[in-house]
């Protein structure tokens, strides 16, 4: 009887200590597409001159951007710090790939685990789009990023089985948060590589003096990824026409 009682006390104490170890944090990432131009020059030869020059201009004009992941035990928020320059001739490719003006929220409550994109740009009103968890393949490769032990995970393209996205996550920050709609790994994502785009954590602040508070977005229509795609198809049929 005494043994069972002791065991129960130990169980509850461990439960309380586990829930008490909540980590707040802020991670700053640097996103770049600096290799896009040289990669394109090597790869593309037989293209129309006009398209080629426009794309080279796009890659050449892309500037590195900073983005931030803020998190506490219940929620995370990811966003790009720099504002997009509104200029007809100049689209910052890296800014768009890093998430642009969108915000990405992850809920990590006991009741709900969900990643949402807040998009107020594409359809002229604000939508909160529920994202699916990517199909990760965990690898046994490790490296250190900013002093944190990280492990590799990849997403494969189902059409050709080639790796389309590679990320490095750290179980030392034991939350399933990530950048943009890349989430659901047993640790926070500190690096992401997609073709010539890459984003790496350059500053990690854990448990800052001021606790991180993340408010849920208001006045946005909640919608699934599929429903949002249907709306974009209706709004921009010309893009989807063959």
């Amino acid at each position, binding site marked *: 009887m005494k043994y069972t009682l002791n065991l129960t006390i130990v169980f509850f104490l461990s439960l309380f200590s586990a829930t008490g170890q909540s980590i707040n944090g802020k991670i700053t990432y640097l996103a770049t597409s600096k290799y896009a131009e040289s*990669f*394109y020059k090597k*790869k*593309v030869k037989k*293209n129309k001159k006009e*398209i080629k020059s*426009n*794309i080279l201009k*796009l890659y050449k004009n892309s500037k590195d951007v900073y983005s931030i992941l803020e998190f506490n035990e219940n929620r995370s928020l990811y966003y790009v710090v720099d504002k997009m320059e509104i*200029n*007809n*001739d100049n*689209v910052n*490719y890296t800014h*768009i*790939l890093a998430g*642009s003006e969108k915000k990405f929220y992850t809920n990590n409550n006991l009741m709900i685990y969900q990643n949402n*994109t807040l*998009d107020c*740009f*594409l359809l002229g009103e604000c939508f909160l789009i529920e994202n699916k968890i990517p199909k990760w393949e965990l690898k046994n490769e490790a490296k250190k990023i900013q002093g944190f032990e990280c492990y590799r995970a990849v997403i494969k*393209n189902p*059409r*050709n089985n*080639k790796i*389309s996205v590679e990320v490095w996550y750290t179980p030392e920050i034991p939350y399933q948060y990530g950048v943009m709609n890349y989430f659901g790994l047993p640790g926070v994502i500190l690096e992401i590589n*997609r*073709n*010539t785009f890459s984003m790496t954590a350059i500053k990690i602040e854990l448990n800052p003096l001021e606790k991180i508070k993340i408010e849920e977005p208001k006045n946005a229509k909640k919608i699934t990824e599929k429903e949002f795609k249907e709306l*974009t198809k209706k709004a*921009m049929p*010309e*893009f*989807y026409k063959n």
Partner: protein
Amino acid sequence: MKKLILCLVFIFTTGTNFLSAESTEINVVIDSEIIKISEDDFGCASDCVQWAKGLVFEIADNNNDDPNDYQFYMDIYMRYYTGCLRGCE
């Protein structure tokens, strides 16, 4: 008596309203210049679609992606398209 006066006031006011109503004629003026400008705008917008779409599909191809699979290709398209449309004005 009061009711009768109220009825008369009602009939008088509604009657004057009907009398003051004017019939309107819709004049359709076909202005060739206006039509020409609209057609030009449409042509320019159509060119913008083709141009922006061409660029996005090229970028996606360069990345070995299908542009329909990733939302950011639509974002790039929209930025190019709206930027191009501003040039049509």
